């Protein structure tokens, strides 16, 4: 039944840890005073967030005429950032749901923080359509509820409405999944807490958890069910986002491979962001024994695979455009690669197709500094992918007299910066107040790949034969 005594597998957690060491190590940053580095990072993020708040307030007051849109390009920076953030938000639930179903037990070191990243990224994404509504205080009009305006219902044939359902479901399920995993850890914190306030807060949040095996039994079933529900959900969300484009008739958008292409791109960018964050966190929070080089290498492999799917999709798109015989499609792709936005296209190709190929080399996958740089390169590339898909498909439409160029205004750039401010502010708060690593889950994989101690004297082969638990 249990496989963690196999000599074929390497331990997931480095060092000779005991159960208590794991709790101590993971909780240490929460029990200490925040470091100077944390304060600096927090204040910088908060400042950038405030710049974003000012920009958003201004554009809501004045209107979205403050953006660089024109009659030809009616969709640009805002939706680019929306798709970018939603894509980032795909890695967390992938790690917690799909890797869980595949029994990838190394996920336990990174799932908590990746899920937190997902939730925050979805919040960042949600801001953009909200602003784009122009009158965000009427956002509830997208919810179908019996109202006094007729009742006037929403249009269930619209991909933008599907998007609303997909994003809000994704956010809710991710939040529930994350919190379910957090309950046992909150109980651990509660039982360690010295101060009354902490005991009260953690007591409230741990729902009276006492580690009963009967409850664990139901807990594991619930976790498995949520994973099974979240797995198709992850795939559906970016598929639906891609339908915002694919159901249109615009050349460059009207494409049947968009759903898998977008999903692969989302996982590609999401894992890159996880790598960026984990590489910083393991160093700053001293989690090198939990988020090991092996973890980074495995994540690099996922980046490589999904990057390969993205590259293949680019290839198919270009092939179809040139050889399918649709002159508009053909023009649009040549215009993408050779037109006025060629620089953005080639940034996209080099960041998403060329540079990730370095990850084939094991030495590079195990080199933290290089992986860090590559993860940021991929993030830049994936932002440009969305920009290229959206803006270059629109800027030279069927009527050459209305061809135009798009340039973001300072307000739009400040909004994008603000979303990064929001992301890092919340992530820093998360790292400060919530266990960064799922303590309960890491304890469960502690023995993975290690020999049973009381049997080692009889030889490792014997130890492996004696595993029926």
């Amino acid at each position: 039944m249990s496989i963690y005594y196999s000599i074929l597998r390497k331990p997931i957690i480095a060092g000779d840890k005991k159960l208590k060491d794991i709790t101590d190590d993971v909780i240490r940053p929460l029990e200490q005073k925040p470091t100077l580095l944390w304060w600096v990072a927090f204040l910088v993020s908060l400042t950038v967030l405030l710049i974003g708040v000012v920009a958003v307030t201004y554009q809501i007051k004045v209107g979205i005429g403050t953006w660089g849109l024109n009659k030809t390009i009616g969709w640009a920076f805002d939706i680019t950032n929306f798709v970018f953030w939603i894509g980032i938000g795909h890695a967390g639930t992938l790690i917690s749901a799909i890797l869980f179903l595949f029994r990838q037990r190394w996920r336990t070191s990174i799932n908590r923080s990746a899920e937190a990243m997902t939730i925050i990224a979805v919040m960042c994404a949600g801001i953009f359509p909200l602003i784009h509504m122009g009158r965000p205080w009427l956002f509830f009009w997208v919810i179908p509820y019996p109202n006094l305006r007729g009742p006037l219902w929403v249009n269930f044939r619209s991909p933008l409405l599907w998007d609303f359902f997909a994003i809000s479901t994704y956010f809710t399920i991710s939040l529930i999944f994350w919190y379910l995993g957090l309950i046992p850890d909150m109980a651990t914190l509660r039982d360690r807490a010295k101060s009354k306030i902490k005991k009260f807060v953690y007591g409230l949040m741990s729902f009276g958890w006492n580690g009963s095996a009967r409850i664990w039994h139901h807990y594991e079933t619930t976790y498995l069910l949520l994973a099974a529900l979240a797995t198709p959900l992850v795939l559906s969300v970016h598929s639906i986002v891609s339908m915002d484009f694919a159901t249109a008739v615009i050349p460059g958008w009207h494409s049947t491979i968009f759903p898998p292409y977008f999903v692969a791109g989302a996982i590609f960018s999401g894992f890159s962001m996880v790598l960026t964050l984990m590489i910083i966190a393991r160093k700053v929070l001293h989690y090198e024994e939990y988020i090991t080089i092996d973890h980074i290498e495995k994540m690099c492999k996922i980046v490589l695979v999904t990057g390969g799917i993205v590259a293949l999709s680019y290839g198919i798109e270009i092939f179809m455009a040139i050889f399918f015989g649709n002159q508009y499609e053909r023009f649009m792709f040549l215009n993408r690669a050779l037109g006025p936005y060629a620089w953005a296209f080639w940034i996209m190709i080099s960041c998403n197709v060329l540079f990730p190929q370095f990850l084939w080399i094991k030495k590079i996958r195990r080199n933290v500094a290089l992986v860090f740089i590559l993860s940021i390169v991929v993030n830049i590339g994936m932002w440009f992918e969305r920009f290229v898909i959206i803006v270059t498909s629109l800027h030279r439409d069927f009527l050459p007299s209305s061809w135009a160029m798009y340039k973001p205004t300072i307000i739009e750039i400040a909004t994008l910066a603000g979303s990064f401010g929001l992301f890092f502010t919340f992530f820093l708060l998360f790292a400060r107040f919530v266990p960064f690593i799922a303590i309960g889950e890491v304890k469960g994989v502690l023995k993975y790949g290690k020999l049973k101690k009381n049997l080692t004297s009889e030889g490792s082969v014997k130890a492996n034969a004696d595993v029926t638990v």
Partner: protein
Amino acid sequence: MDLFSAVFKDEDDLLKVTRQVRDSGYSIYDIYTPYAVHGLDDAMGLKPSKLSYLCFGFAFLGLIVAILSQYWIGSIDWPINVGGKPFNSLPAYLPVTFELTVLFGGVGIFFAFLFKAKLRPGKTAKLVNPHSTDYYFILTLEIKDSSFDSETVLSLCRQNNAVETKIILGNAL
């Protein structure tokens, strides 16, 4: 009812002693562990959780609600002609139907779990040992009557490296 409790430091000891006491005919009150011990449900003889059926029920409810409400809204209450498409355009309803299925299933199962496990915000946890959520594994047995053979249990616990055993009177849990 009185309880007998034994504290262990290792999951392998716990799994072994759980099987042994169950084979010897003792009834396990509960076991408290800091993490989900793999194979413990099997060792305790717990039946598979029925929550999965409930989850299916919630998800199915979501499916029905989504299809019926979209049909009613789109075809009966306020039909809108969108590009000459039929009012009841089922394929277009699939994305929202799928999302609501997952939403109902996920939210439903979360609250069903909390209900089943009797967990709620602000509930005071009943702990046998303050370290059972950190690094100790605690086995508790029911002492139903005087036939409870404490000598055998004690020797079983000692064989499996128990660090502490005690009797909790009157079920303080």
